[in-house]
């Protein structure tokens, strides 16, 4: 299908974009367009205006700031995958991005776009929550920082206010004893997952000291398995027990590819896959 009619505004700087957005409730930000344009072509959305921020300078920088690696909102998935700092300081992100769509889409789709959109099936929002990332937002009254854990409110619903633009994501650098391990089950390489898991593991020798389990493609937003993580630390992998725990703390929602029961099953076995990866 074809997109409905809308007007188009090419923002030259962040201030222009914020001003425009605050004046028009139905205008939406256009970054890489790799989620927005499919939605428009399918007529799932009919904004009054697209505010194109993709030409704003310096919003794609990737740099180290203290104990954080700071990724500018407009850095494309390909920019991030080819960046030396990311390879050195956050190599797991390179492996995760290999699972995000296909090269031609990664060449346009942006890091900030994926985080701001909050697709529950997307890898990056769950990654940001597992990493305890800080999300930097800019609006009429200046900048504020929101923890990724508090940013995702519900299905495609975030804490982004109508006058705000996401400008960067700050990931705390991992200590030597901390690891971010991920796995997902999907039908075709590059497709959205049927279920996926981001696990942040803190080791003391080979014993797990601390564990955060954050799921994607399971419910309405990145789903945290807090009690289940405790069970894993105490008792290791026990399929029935972990499945029961996950069922009680996450509201699994089925989709076209997999029912909620199937997602619960996949979420459970993903824990085993992660533990196996950890041993290697």
């Amino acid at each position, binding site marked *: *299908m*074809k*997109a*409905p*009619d*809308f*007007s*188009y*505004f*090419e923002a030259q700087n962040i201030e*222009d974009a914020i*001003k*425009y957005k605050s004046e028009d409730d139905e*205008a939406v930000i*256009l970054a890489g*367009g*790799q989620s927005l*344009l*499919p939605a*428009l*072509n*399918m007529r799932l959305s009919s904004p009054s*205006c*697209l505010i*194109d921020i*993709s030409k704003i300078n310096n919003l794609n920088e990737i740099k180290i700031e203290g104990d954080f690696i700071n990724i500018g909102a407009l850095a494309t998935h*390909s920019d991030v995958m080819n960046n030396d700092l990311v390879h050195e300081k956050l190599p797991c992100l390179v492996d995760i991005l290999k699972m995000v*769509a*296909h*090269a*031609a*889409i990664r*060449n*346009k789709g942006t890091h900030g776009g994926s985080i701001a959109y909050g697709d529950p099936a997307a890898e990056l929002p769950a990654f940001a929550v597992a990493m305890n990332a800080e999300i930097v937002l800019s609006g009429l009254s200046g900048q504020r920082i929101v923890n990724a854990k508090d940013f995702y409110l519900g299905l495609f619903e975030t804490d982004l206010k109508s006058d705000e633009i996401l400008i960067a994501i700050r990931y705390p650098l991992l200590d030597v004893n901390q690891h971010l391990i991920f796995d997902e089950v999907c039908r*075709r*390489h*590059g497709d959205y997952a049927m279920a996926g898991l981001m696990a942040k593991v803190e080791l003391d020798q080979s014993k797990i000291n601390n564990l955060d389990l954050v799921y994607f493609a399971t419910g309405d937003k990145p789903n945290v398995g807090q009690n289940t993580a405790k069970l894993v630390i105490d008792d290791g992998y026990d399929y029935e027990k972990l499945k029961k725990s996950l069922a009680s703390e996450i509201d699994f929602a089925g989709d076209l590819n997999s029912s909620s029961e199937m997602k619960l099953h996949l979420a459970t076995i993903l824990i085993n896959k992660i533990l196996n990866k950890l041993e290697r």
Partner: protein
Amino acid sequence: MSAKNSVNISFSVNGENFDDVTVPTRQHLADYLRSQGLTGTHLGCEQGACGACTIEMDGVAVRSCLVLASQANGSSITTVEGFDDEVMQKVKNNFLKHNAFQCGFCSPGMLMTTKEIISSKKKLSRDEIRSEISGNYCRCTGYQSIVDAIEETINEIN
């Protein structure tokens, strides 16, 4: 600060300049190119999944159904019609030799994706080639012949 429903843009396609042309803001780049007779760029799903509309924009492969024509302002574009250098001739010959064109619908996208794969000059395994073209649907060949053609081209140029 004003927003409009059409914009004037300038860009180049296969070396030819398009100066100050008016495009509706809702039109995606694939539709604009096709309206100019450049119908080598095919449209399958218009949601980024099938890969038939893949073109090269400022040196990298993109989906032309997921780029607005208005966003092409200032850019340099190559479509399958602009496929004429020596290496791309090799690609075409190998696609012919291995019967990697069947109905031809996916071919423009496959060729543009192949262009990006071989430009990295990496020696890829068959599995890696399969993963690189995983964003392009083909409903005829079962991919075997396409992987054969890409593999042979990679061997020839490295």
